[in-house]
């Protein structure tokens, strides 16, 4: 991929970085390669105030690159964030996480536990992890590398781990104060929750992708605003930072099969 073009992975990273643009001084947590690079890019460029860890328990002033590090590399530590403190922080609401759920439904409810029945699942995954506490306490976004009706399911997700905009489940039918779902970056589009009653809406389509294509691969109706922009291309500065600083070993090349270009064939 030359400097003129960019890959789909690079497009997703820059699109996902936007999640943290206006957050100010919150803990940015990106789970998985693309969310982590996106949070790192946001901190390295338009929101340096973000708190970030080294992926373990140290706060760092500069994002830590992914993959093998140069001999003698020492992260620029600025504090300590062990797991116990992470809970104290997140209960206070000052965090924005981006996660990769196995299933997402029309309400934005998420699942990483299992597929099938709870007592004897067809496939057991991790468990709800911190999703219930995260989603009721602070902002959350998502990265879905395989936009399909298998992920964006028609009904509710098989095990609701992450809270969504589903009043039937809310205590007393009132929206929990901390519930704040922001964006979903997929391989086809950027979605948000700005449709009527927080309906999931297409915020932008990646170059060469149509609304129909996004809708066909989604198990529920997507809101269609009057006009849908094309997802903004990465800038030269962003590409340079991702390629040379944050991901020098090009781990992002393995996110999508064949490492496709960001502009799909046939697109203008």
């Amino acid at each position: 991929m030359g400097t003129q073009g960019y890959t789909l992975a690079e497009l997703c990273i820059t699109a996902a970085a936007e999640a943290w643009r206006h957050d100010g001084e919150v803990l940015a947590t990106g789970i998985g390669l693309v969310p982590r690079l996106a949070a790192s890019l946001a901190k390295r460029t338009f929101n340096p105030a973000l708190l970030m860890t080294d992926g373990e328990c140290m706060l760092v002033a500069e994002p830590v690159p992914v993959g093998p590090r140069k001999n003698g590399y020492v992260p620029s530590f600025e504090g300590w964030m062990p797991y116990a403190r992470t809970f104290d922080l997140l209960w206070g609401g000052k965090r924005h996480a981006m996660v990769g759920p196995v299933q997402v439904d029309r309400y934005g409810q998420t699942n990483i536990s299992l597929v099938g029945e709870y007592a004897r699942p067809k496939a057991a995954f991790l468990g709800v992890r911190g999703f219930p506490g995260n989603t009721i306490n602070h902002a959350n976004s998502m990265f879905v590398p395989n936009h399909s009706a298998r992920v964006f399911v028609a009904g509710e997700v098989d095990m609701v781990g992450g809270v969504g905009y589903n009043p039937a489940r809310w205590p007393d039918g009132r929206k929990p104060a901390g519930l704040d779902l922001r964006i979903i970056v997929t391989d086809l589009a950027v979605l948000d929750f700005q449709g009527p009653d927080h309906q999931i809406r297409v915020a932008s389509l990646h170059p060469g992708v149509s609304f129909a294509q996004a809708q066909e691969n989604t198990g529920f109706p997507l809101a269609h605003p009057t006009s849908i922009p094309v997802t903004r291309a990465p800038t030269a500065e962003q590409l340079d930072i991702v390629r040379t600083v944050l991901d020098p070993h090009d781990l992002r090349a393995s996110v999508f099969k064949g490492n496709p270009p960001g502009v799909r064939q046939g697109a203008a």
Partner: protein
Amino acid sequence: MLDKRMSLADIAGRLRDGMTVGIGGWATRRKPMALVREILRSPVKDLTVVAYGGPDVGMLCAAGKVKRLIFGFVTLDVLPLDAHFRAAREAGALECWEYDEGMVLLGLRAAGMRLPFLPARGGLATDVMRVNPFLKTVRSPYADAEELVAVPAIKLDVALLHVTEADQLGNSVILSPDPFFDELFARAADQCYLSCERLLPTSEICSRDKARYNPFERSLVTGVAEVPHGAHPTASVPGYGIDVEHLKEYSGATGDAWSAYRAKYVDLPDHAAYVEAVGGAARVEALPAPVF
């Protein structure tokens, strides 16, 4: 003079069928794996296990020791999923109390505080409430009248922890970057047992500089076993990192392959034989600290 030194077999011998056992550490970090293997060799069964789960949970599942699991996740970090936990769960062999991670924390803290529950938001509006029908909510008695989860105390019969250094009195230090929730496990338990990398005189553990790394007071500790490399194949930093190669062999040893893994690494005369089986002390100590 107090002397809480015990052997691994002595500690495993304190477990009884049906007990609730909390295991410290986190996923693939500072798990008391030598104690877990000792449990595998013992006749104890029908355990309720409480953990931020890694191969400790998977191994106990593979050996059929777990009746009920109270957890937020089971993962091998570098490998997202533990095949033995998956197999047991998909076979319907486990009773799962699947909690939010913060609920596990609060349940342990409530037990340590001798409270019946602590309130939380995490869990509301999710299936955590549906799949654990015994969970109840409480309403704030104040003007907000907010409905909250009453996270019930998770009282432990036994806590099993792996620390960096300890003395024979039960004083300990955890020199790893993150102490995780070991303190809460210790406080929630009637009996707390430590394995440690090094058993040292008190003066070498509790200097003014190192006392900052003392996770809890010795009065919580029932027994201590010196077990160098006792967290392998999980990490005990400083000392050694995660043995990714071994975790792959372990997680790949499902079905018929489990008995071969067990013969090679579990059914051994002692911990020294285990360290030899995994390549020797020098190999373990050369495992790099994990980079996340």
